């Protein structure tokens, strides 16, 4: 089993190779290869997860046997493996569930390119999750950005071009800031590997030297990643990006890519900055504040939206706010909640995007609510998928949303200062979520205004149905029996 520590590297390289290979394959084979790769990645990470959980500590994986501080390293522990498993699974389900729309949106020519991009996203996500090197992190951030833009732009309508330009600009600003921050830290400490960086930073922080540049460096990195993950007030690219992309892309971008950045940030906080330094510097207060505001603003914007995709996209902005709020509360319970919510959102949001796509197809392609009236009757799987996702977003019992809410509230009680605001905002945000998600569900199950399109043939529905049912099932299962997941997260955070 100890062999499994090699899996992450295999996965990363394998994904990269898949990307290369896919570019010369035909559509169908590209898809098959890509999906097979993602499945294999999921399985391998699963094995690794089992191994690491049993091992009970984290493992440094040096590449090419160059010892640190020179070599490039990966760190493996159960939390990272867990996140990778979930990400791969969701990626697979996204590709599966959005298949029909992909065919429609892309035509026949470029579909293999789509899978190239997907494989690249997979590569960079894995790298972001596993890397132990700040600069490697930066490199894959950029790869991820480009791949994401590709996923977005590949649907060639004017809107997506505009959206991807905007996304690109924001993303590049983000990665630029990240880069600057890395430069700051590297200049002062001379390290790019996280453990060394952490050690040096801790010493420096204690001595009081270079406070300002250190703080600047950490802030720049944090802000850079916050922009890329779409924290308020940098969330304005979201609705266009998610709203007009092809559904699988929307699912991947909102559910995985932005979460990858957040996970990297968490990793940096724990491994590179050190929680004592980071939380001592007080940056988390700003994250908390922005997160809280984002929760409300995102939901309010969602309420005012008339387009189901954009509404779901704005809801993403709110959910990102939740995660940052968790990070801002405290490094233990708060971050536990944040990580749990990362998973919640990664499972829920793609389900919502995919379901919305099915529903709008059923309603003749219009995304307006008025046209969607009764759409759930033409496609009950999509109706179910959307309902489960929406209920989870609201935070109803037996979904992951409730557990996430519970974890946030539990964390809030750790902090005298943030307890009441957190709980109140959680309450308000639930009300707001209820307003727009409930409205949508009721709309979907209302009496159809006109005759709905015939349900498409069962055979073509199977991929989506599988994906929707698996996502919903995961949501419910992890919402009902949540403790194993929470324990894993807690254990993983301890190893961080």
């Amino acid at each position, binding site marked *: 089993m100890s062999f499994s520590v090699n899996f992450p590297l295999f996965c990363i390289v394998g994904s990269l190779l898949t990307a290369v290979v896919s570019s010369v394959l035909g559509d169908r084979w590209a898809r098959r290869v890509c999906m097979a790769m993602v499945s294999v990645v999921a399985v391998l990470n699963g094995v690794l997860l089992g191994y690491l959980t049993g091992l009970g500590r984290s493992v440094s994986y040096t590449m090419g046997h160059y010892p640190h501080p020179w070599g490039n390293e990966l760190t493996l522990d159960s939390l990272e493996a867990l996140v990778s498993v979930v990400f791969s699974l969701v990626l697979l389900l996204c590709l599966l569930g959005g298949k029909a729309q992909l065919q429609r949106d892309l035509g026949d020519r470029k579909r293999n390119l789509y899978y190239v991009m997907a494989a690249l996203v997979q590569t960079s996500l894995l790298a972001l999750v596993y890397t132990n090197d700040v600069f490697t992190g930066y490199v894959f951030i950029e790869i991820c950005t480009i791949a994401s833009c590709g996923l977005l732009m590949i649907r060639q309508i004017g809107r997506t071009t505009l959206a991807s330009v905007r996304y690109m600009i924001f993303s590049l600003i983000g990665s630029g800031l990240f880069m600057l921050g890395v430069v700051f830290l590297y200049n002062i400490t001379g390290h790019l590997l996280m453990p060394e960086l952490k050690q040096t930073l801790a010493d420096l922080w204690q001595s009081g030297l270079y406070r300002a540049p250190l703080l600047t460096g950490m802030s720049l990195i944090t802000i850079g990643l916050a922009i890329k993950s779409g924290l308020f007030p940098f969330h304005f690219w979201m609705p266009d990006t998610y709203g007009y992309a092809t559904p699988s892309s929307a699912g991947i971008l909102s559910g995985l890519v932005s979460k990858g950045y957040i996970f990297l940030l968490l990793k940096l906080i724990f491994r590179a900055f050190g929680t004592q330094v980071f939380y001592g510097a007080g940056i988390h207060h700003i994250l908390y504040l922005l997160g809280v505001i984002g929760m409300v603003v995102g939901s309010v914007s969602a309420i005012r939206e008339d387009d189901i995709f954009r509404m779901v996209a704005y809801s993403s902005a709110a959910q990102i706010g939740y995660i940052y709020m968790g990070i801002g509360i405290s490094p233990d319970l708060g971050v536990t909640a944040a990580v749990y919510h990362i998973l919640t959102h990664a499972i829920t949001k793609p389900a919502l995007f995919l379901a919305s796509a099915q529903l709008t197809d059923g309603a003749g392609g219009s995304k307006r609510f008025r046209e969607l009236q009764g759409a759930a009757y033409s496609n009950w799987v999509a109706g179910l998928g959307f309902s489960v996702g929406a*209920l989870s977003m*609201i*935070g*109803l*019992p*037996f979904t992951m949303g*409730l*557990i996430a*809410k*519970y974890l946030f*509230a*539990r964390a809030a*009680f750790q902090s005298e200062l943030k307890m*009441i605001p957190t*709980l*109140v905002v*959680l*309450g308000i945000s*639930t*009300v707001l979520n*209820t*307003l727009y998600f*409930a*409205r949508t569900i*009721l709309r979907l*199950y*209302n*009496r159809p205004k006109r005759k709905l399109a015939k349900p498409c043939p069962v055979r073509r529905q199977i991929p989506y149905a599988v994906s929707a049912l698996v996502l919903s099932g995961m949501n419910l299962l992890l*919402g*009902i*029996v*949540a*403790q194993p997941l*929470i324990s894993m997260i807690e254990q993983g955070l301890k190893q961080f």
Partner: protein
Amino acid sequence: MNSVFLLLPVCLPIAVGLGIFFLKRHSAGLISGLAMGATLAASVLTWLLIFLCRQESFVLLHLTDALSFCFRFDSLGRFYAGIVATLWPLTVLYAFSYMAHEGHKRVFYSFFTVAYGVTLGICTAGNLITLYCFYEMLTLSTVPLVMHNLTRQAVRAARTYLAFSLGGAAFAFASVIFLVTNGAVGEFSFGGLLAGHPYERSALTWVFFLLGFFGFGVKAAVFPLHIWLPKASVAPTPVTALLHAVAVVNSGIFAVMRLVWYCYGPTLLRGSWAQNIALGFAIITMVYGAVYAVKEGHWKRRLAYSTVSNLSYMLFGILLLTPQGLEGSLLHMAFHSCMKILAFFCAGAVFHQTGREYNASLGGLGRAMPVTFTCFTISAVALTGIPPFNGFVSKWYLLTAAAECGTPMAYAGAGALLLSALLTAVYMMPNAVSGWFGRAEPGSLDTIREADWRMGLPHVVLSLGTLITGLFAQPVVQAAAAIAAGG
């Protein structure tokens, strides 16, 4: 009986309800048969369990280490379950006739049956988190019932209902988590769980108590949060009758009882400003609901406002924080369910037979539908609180409790209660009077006939129930007193 059996009455209706929903080929007879069968079976089971089930807990699963999902059938749960299990089959019977000409029967019976299981789940919930889960599920399972006829008005009402209920629960959730994180994770225990924890008697506790009170108070229609209730009376009558006079709103009351008496604990809350604020809102609601009921011209909405007012009687009783108050509150919960569901049934029967739904249009209908109007008169008299009907008994216990309690708030509440009782006469009696004595257009009554036996039987049974539980209230009073004494 082992308390594992508690799962049966909870799961059976839910399973059958979902089964009805996914039924492929269906006839109306099959659906209603299934619904009635499941309801009856669950009722019988519930009554068996009320008498036979041991008072022990059964943990179904752990959501997380702190949040367990467990069932326990204590005396309060049995009391409420008794009410629900008695009234539900009657309503299903009523619905057979009422819904005979309505569409979407499958959806209706499906969710109606599911809601039954969920309500029983609320009764049997062993701790606050389980209660919370069922509480949310109750909201979800009843929304389709509220928007059943899918008119714009109904959908809007459903939306309001959802937003209020879920939003309220969100704030209640904060209170739940406050309790959970402060060690009060265990099962409900009479007298509260919070004794001796670090936040005892701090402003924080009161704030969270109030969050919980108003959160669960949404279903109990406490003053600023009552708006959904009158709106929701667009639903078909079996729904408004059962859910908005009995199951849903009483679940709110029940949750507040659990919160006050079994979680925060009366000794802790007694004398705090939180108690006074909560009492204040209950008192305002009593009068407010009654005043709006008087102003309302639509019969069912009037009854809904009346419910708003009456629910606050119960809240008032709970918040007096004396055993007598809880006793009165429990009695009113039982008796009010009986009389209000009767009133709704009558209004529904009239609407079903004649299409008339406004107070002003009832002139002389009593001569065409004597049974219905006799029953309505009984319910009106009982609601007003006139002996020997049961409404008098519960009012008596509530008011003596207020007199015993002796705080200024209790006196204010007693006054408000009497005022609201007077207003009850003002809004209930004119309908009865104009039904019996009002002028009808000549010939307009010729075509109107009494509703069939499936509506009539629940009417008569409930009227007799209203009378008999008033005349011989002692068993109910004893049960309530036992609960209030901590049994």
